């Protein structure tokens, strides 16, 4: 088995794909902690559906680089949902449900109506659940994902202390002159970038798992924000690596395999957390 993995690694595109997969896992886990703690997990889920709708539009109008359309639409909806969270007329969660389900239905509908592809259900499946194999990622995908991932990690490190302050206590942060609204916006924008990038790897339906599971696992074990952040990043990257290797060897879909590994890790952390508290 090790022999067959080694054979795969001889191909550069496999190595690149694995590196990108790990980068995506890293940046989705970083902001996952904030999202979970701010009770924003559902926004991540809603955004992934929006990204699906946008992707459907992009593929129907035959854009060569779909990111040009998908990224701005997703970022726009992220801002919209964040604003709605503070609006009392339509509750935030109801708003997210409306936008996300609407985008999903709209995307599927126009794919059906206008798609020129011969394998429609295959296309839909790929956008929802990710590439059946990581080996089908194109080299442009890999490069773009790598650049965006590095940018996300950089933003997180630079604003780490601000993000902590705004996540823990928005009222206090505002009172001491921190631009809480601005940082919330930053968080929403970065989350949408993460989601768009991660869609290549795990597909739009499974992104939330990548964002939420490492953070929740780390929260079972660690006692400080830094600890939770570091642990969830390490855990997420290892799970992604293990998941990708498994999927190559066993021929299973990449996204689903990674999520399964994440769930297994969560269960281990959950039990460990319970045992430690005794």
């Amino acid at each position: 088995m090790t022999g067959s993995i080694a054979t795969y690694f001889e191909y550069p595109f496999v190595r690149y794909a694995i590196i990108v997969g790990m980068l995506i896992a890293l940046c989705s886990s970083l902001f996952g902690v904030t999202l979970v703690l701010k009770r924003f997990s559902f926004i991540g889920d809603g955004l992934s559906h929006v990204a699906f709708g946008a992707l459907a539009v992009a593929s129907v109008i035959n854009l060569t680089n779909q990111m040009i359309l998908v990224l701005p639409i997703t970022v726009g909806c992220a801002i919209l949902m964040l604003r709605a969270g503070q609006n009392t007329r339509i509750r935030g969660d109801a708003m997210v449900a409306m936008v996300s389900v609407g985008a999903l239905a709209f995307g599927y509908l126009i794919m059906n109506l206008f798609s020129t592809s011969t394998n429609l259900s295959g296309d839909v499946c790929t956008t929802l659940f990710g590439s059946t194999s990581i080996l089908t990622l194109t080299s442009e995908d890999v490069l773009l994902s790598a650049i965006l991932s590095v940018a996300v990690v950089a933003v997180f490190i630079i604003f780490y202390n601000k993000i902590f302050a705004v996540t823990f206590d928005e009222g206090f942060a505002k009172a001491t002159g921190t631009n809480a609204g601005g940082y919330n916006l930053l968080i929403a924008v970065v989350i949408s970038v993460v989601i768009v990038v991660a869609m290549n790897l795990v597909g739009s339906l499974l992104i939330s798992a990548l964002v939420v599971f490492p953070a929740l696992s780390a929260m079972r074990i660690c006692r400080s924000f830094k600890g939770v952040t570091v642990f969830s990043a390490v855990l997420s990257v290892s799970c992604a690596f293990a998941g990708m290797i498994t999927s190559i060897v066993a021929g299973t879909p990449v996204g689903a395999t990674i999520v399964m590994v994440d769930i297994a890790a969560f269960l281990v952390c959950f039990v460990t957390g319970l045992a430690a508290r005794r």
Partner: protein
Amino acid sequence: MALISVSNVSLGYDAGIIAKDINLEINNGDYLCIVGENGSGKSTFIKTLLGFQRPLSGKVIFGEGLRKNEIGYLPQQTSVQKDFPASVWEIVLSGCQARAGLRPFYNSDEKKMARENMKRMNVEEFAGRCYRQLSGGQQQRVLLARALCASRSLLILDEPVSGLDPKATADMYEAIKKLNDEGVTIIMISHDVNAAVRFATHILHMRSNPVFLTKEEYKNSDLGKCYLAVEP
């Protein structure tokens, strides 16, 4: 000049005015307690002082070089904080956020300040502990230490003793009193009128036409007598 002067301020939302014509001056070293029934505008008044919302009319003027980001604020606890995985050290240090400005990381002065304020509030032994594992009283003292990192001169406290047991409540009042004796100006919302008249120098009683009096005046006023009589 006063630290904060509030002139002819009216508070409210779109729906209408909650409280009108608030006039008061807060000087260095004062201890102001804001009392009144639920919905009378206590929190709205504090939000106005903090600049979260504008008064419907009137003015709030900050004097003596007090800048907006030099207010230490102790908000009511939110549900998010109750299971937030953060160490006491991280939380206290985050009080230096305004000082750090756009600099991404804290410098040694700020860390020193965080350590000093933890000592001051007697929570240094918890530095590495997880916030959510502390008792309610300990959590409040941690948040006070954080507020002190944000401001040496003025603290605004929103019901700092709500949900605390009697012992922790007494300790908290004691700690706040001690800070006031050291020269920190205190503005505090309180449900407990008896405690308010015991510790405060001034009382702001919120209602549709709020009353601002010194403690002695309040004790002797009909309004004060009425409220103090109701309490056990």
